[in-house]
């Protein structure tokens, strides 16, 4: 059972917690599921909104230390809105 991965045919980021940047003021942090013609499917997603005037770096550091407070159980981010995706652990490094 050790090292067994159930989803070998999935996207390389499947199951990985990512920071998804958008062309708007919003940044999504959550578990990447898949990507298709509609966009990126994520689970247990927290949302940062620069329009609120808080620090994105602080938000990401808090996610890293205390975990992600999900605002969306499931979320589809349309492809046209996605500007960048990176792993949370890399984003806070």
């Amino acid at each position, binding site marked *: *059972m050790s*090292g067994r*991965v159930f989803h070998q045919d999935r996207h390389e980021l499947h*199951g990985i917690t990512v920071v998804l940047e958008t062309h708007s003021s919003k940044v999504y942090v959550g578990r990447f599921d898949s990507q298709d013609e509609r966009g990126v499917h994520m689970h247990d997603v927290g949302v940062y909104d620069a329009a609120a005037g808080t620090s994105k770096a602080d938000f990401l550091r808090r996610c*890293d230390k*205390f*975990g*992600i407070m*999900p605002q969306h159980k499931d979320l589809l981010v349309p492809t046209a809105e996605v500007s960048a995706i990176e*792993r949370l652990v890399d984003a806070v490094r």
Partner: protein
Amino acid sequence: MPYNPALVAPMRGEMTNMGARELTSVAEVDAALGDQKGTMLVFINSVCGCAAGNARPALRLALQHGVKPQQVVTVFAGQDLDATARARQYFAEYQPSSPSVALLRDGEVVHFVHRHQIEGRPPQAIAADLTAAFDRHFGVAV
């Protein structure tokens, strides 16, 4: 809905074989964590192959380190629902994720490893982080 017990039995066995004590009820969790003294590792087990598939071997490696927790206990997320929910109440400051690891000293969480710090990493790297945390929090002060 919990998975078939036969499917998760090897995942439970992997934990008990390395010396972890399974907590499957609220009463067992309260008995272990309610007035916790000394050092303890709580492993939130999971069926997720993406992360738990590497976390369990990592834990086995880490527990071979010279400095380690006095007690190792585990609850199984998605399987033992009440026990897992109760365990998480003892570290409610941290958002639930599974697999995850909490290191406790005298009832206080001194270190927490979230799922996102486990995902996609080889067991050796996860174990190295854990043993560094053991040294930092459970090592003898000089």
